[in-house]
């Protein structure tokens, strides 16, 4: 019962923080924190599944988040017919050739032995690579030449945007399967470096392959599951309702849209949280924790450790992919240049550690709390600096510099929080039972 009490207290306090933001700053800002908090909580659940349940050290979260974002474009944007005619089939043929040459290289490696093996594998890869480039490159040029300022890419499938969330999960799961197949079974630090690398590569691909999602030219105006504020402001029934509630219609429309997202996100979070809780308390969850705590013993008991690791790695990454798709939907645009590892990988780790690794509720709490602090510290920083430097003259160079760079305090604060929690409460705010 005391656990229950303490958890309710934590979540109640968190709710108060967000409500306080609404009362004293603005409800728009409060809903912004709530929405991103919900997404962060889902991300933290995904990482907690990998780290808390299975002890897998994945620092490639950013890559899976970005893949989720890519899924939104590929699913929901209307297809560009002209680009498809220009080289759609050829691009796909090129990709298939690329995939086929990798598969046949693996096959050659497995079938041959000795020196023939090395030479054969390299030869297959080289031939495959040049064949792939020969088919692929002209198609890419043709596609990117179609109205480069407006489209210059293949477009998506034109399906409802909500469908892109599960698609984002699938895309991330597929990538995770490939990574896991090669990198799992390595020591934990090696897995960390490998995932760090794959995340950078995914971002590099998204920045450079303009035919796919316009690269750094960004895709704007993604379809939304919510109506546009402008349309609401012109709808007479909406204006009437807003006025009867005593809210200015413009504010009301933004709040309405944000609240709609909150409801959708909450539904996803609850779904994933319930699934994760059930999984944690099922025999499967107990087996995972047994593997985490002692791999050798679990293996001796006949558990297939590598397979189980692969399974949970794929599941956790899929959750990150879903969250990534949600985030891009909320933003309404895909900007590959904005993915930063500190924000999308390491910050999620801070959430999991601070919340309590191995505990789903802890991960959710960590997601909300850390995102709240991450947003607020940027605002509080300059105020605090103003206060600290109150004795200095207003044109003092040091004072100006301190106040201007105070916004960078938030990274520092996150580091301090992480270190303090690791030192004094290494099991997090809501520890694993």
């Amino acid at each position: 019962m005391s656990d229950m009490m303490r958890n309710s207290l934590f979540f109640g306090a968190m709710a108060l923080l967000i409500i306080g933001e609404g009362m004293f700053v603005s409800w728009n800002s409060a809903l912004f924190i709530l929405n991103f908090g919900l997404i962060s909580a889902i991300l933290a659940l995904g990482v907690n599944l990998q780290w808390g349940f299975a002890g897998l050290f994945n620092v490639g979260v950013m890559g899976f988040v970005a893949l989720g974002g890519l899924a939104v474009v590929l699913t929901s944007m209307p297809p560009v017919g002209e680009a498809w005619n220009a080289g759609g089939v050829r691009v796909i043929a090129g990709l298939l050739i690329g995939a086929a040459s990798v598969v046949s290289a693996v096959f050659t490696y497995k079938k041959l032995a000795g020196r023939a093996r090395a030479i054969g594998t390299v030869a297959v890869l080289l031939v495959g690579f040049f064949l792939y480039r020969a088919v692929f490159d002209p198609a890419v040029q043709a596609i990117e030449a179609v109205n480069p300022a407006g489209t210059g890419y293949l477009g998506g499938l034109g399906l409802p945007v909500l469908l892109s969330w599960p698609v984002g999960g699938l895309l991330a799961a597929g990538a995770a399967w490939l990574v896991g197949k090669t990198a799992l079974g390595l020591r934990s630090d090696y897995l960390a470096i490998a995932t760090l690398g794959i995340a950078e590569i995914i971002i590099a691909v998204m920045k450079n392959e303009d035919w796919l999602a316009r690269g750094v030219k960004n895709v704007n105006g993604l379809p939304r599951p919510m109506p546009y504020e402008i349309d609401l402001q012109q709808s007479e029934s909406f204006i009437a309702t807003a006025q009867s509630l005593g809210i200015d219609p413009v504010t009301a429309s933004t709040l309405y849209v944000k609240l709609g997202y909150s409801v959708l996100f909450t539904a996803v979070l609850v779904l994933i949280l319930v699934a994760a809780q059930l999984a944690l308390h099922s025999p499967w969850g107990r087996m995972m924790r047994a593997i985490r705590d002692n791999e050798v013993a679990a293996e001796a008991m006949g558990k297939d450790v590598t397979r189980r690791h692969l399974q949970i790695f794929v599941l956790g990454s899929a959750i990150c992919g879903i969250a990534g798709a949600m985030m891009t939907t909320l933003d309404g645009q895909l900007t590959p240049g904005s993915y930063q590892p500190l924000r999308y990988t390491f910050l999620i780790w801070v959430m999991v550690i601070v919340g309590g690794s191995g505990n789903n509720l802890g991960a959710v709490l960590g997601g909300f709390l850390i995102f709240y602090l991450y947003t607020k510290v940027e605002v509080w920083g300059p105020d605090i600096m103003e206060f600290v430097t109150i004795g200095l003259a207003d044109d003092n160079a040091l004072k100006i510099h301190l106040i201007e760079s105070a916004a960078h305090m938030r990274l520092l604060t996150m580091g301090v929080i992480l270190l303090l929690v690791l030192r004094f409460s290494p099991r997090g705010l809501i520890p694993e039972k």
Partner: protein
Amino acid sequence: MDFLNGFVALSNFVLIPAIAYGSQLALGALGVTLIYGILRFSNFAHGDTMAFGSMLAVLVTWWLQGMGVSLGPLPTALLALPLAILGTMALVLITDRAVYRFYREQKAKPVILVIVSMGVMFILNGLVRFVIGPNDQKFLDGERFIISVREFKAMTGLREGLAIKTTQGLTVVVAVVCVAALFWFLNRTRTGKSMRAYSDNEDLALLSGIDPERVVMYTWLIVAALATIAGTLYGLDKSFKPFVYFMLLLPIFASAILGGLGNPLGAIAGGFIIAFSEVTITYAWKKVLKYWMPEPLEPDGLVQLLSTDYKFAVSFVILIAVLLFKPTGIFKGKAV
């Protein structure tokens, strides 16, 4: 003549940049590998330690420039290095006292130390941005070139030019001096030998009376010096931007793992292999091949295997290949 022209083009665009970049990576990888060998964890904060050290170097350089001090043809940053190294040494020693030592005493698992180093990474990253801001900073002065393209062409009469930047020459010279000093220290001095003994077998080293705290302290001091030098050289050669050092983490780790984590010689070899692969695979070979291939075979395209934006992919693929086929690296590293 054609062969010479081709070779000069190759040197200008591939060999010289790769040697300079390789030296910078090697110095960075040495730091990572030493921490791994002695403290037994992968230090994610290494990139930001480099950023911190270079930031100090930039600040001291500005101060020296303001006082009118200069080294003539050489960058003033060289004069700033010793002070910057001292500052970074102070920083890592404070970090070790305040953060890492607690976990060492607890005999925490390596992965916990990695997470702790993530926290340190955040703090250093924030600190650097706080002090100097997230933007590009220029601190290079002195002569820009040892040989410029025009001089070289006039000297040799070749069609292709060769340029060697002062910073490239400087990088190689400083790197050679550092590595020589490091190996002399590790192989010839008492402290160096105790460091290697501790790295090879902790229990045996403790039994023979080696003070672990002393070994750890010296390791941090050396790592601080290496990180500052590597970071400053990189900053001089390219440009100083805090975020770039974080991105260097991947090729640096790839170099260290490729050579065998915990093995200093391997770190150097790994640095050069990674640098050469990155540059050769992302270089457009047309310029060189047009001299070396017979007329009818001359390539039409750029003959660039991958666009430069994929250079991370190169280090990554090499890394994965090594991990799959030879997990202890080329030179035998520690396989824990």
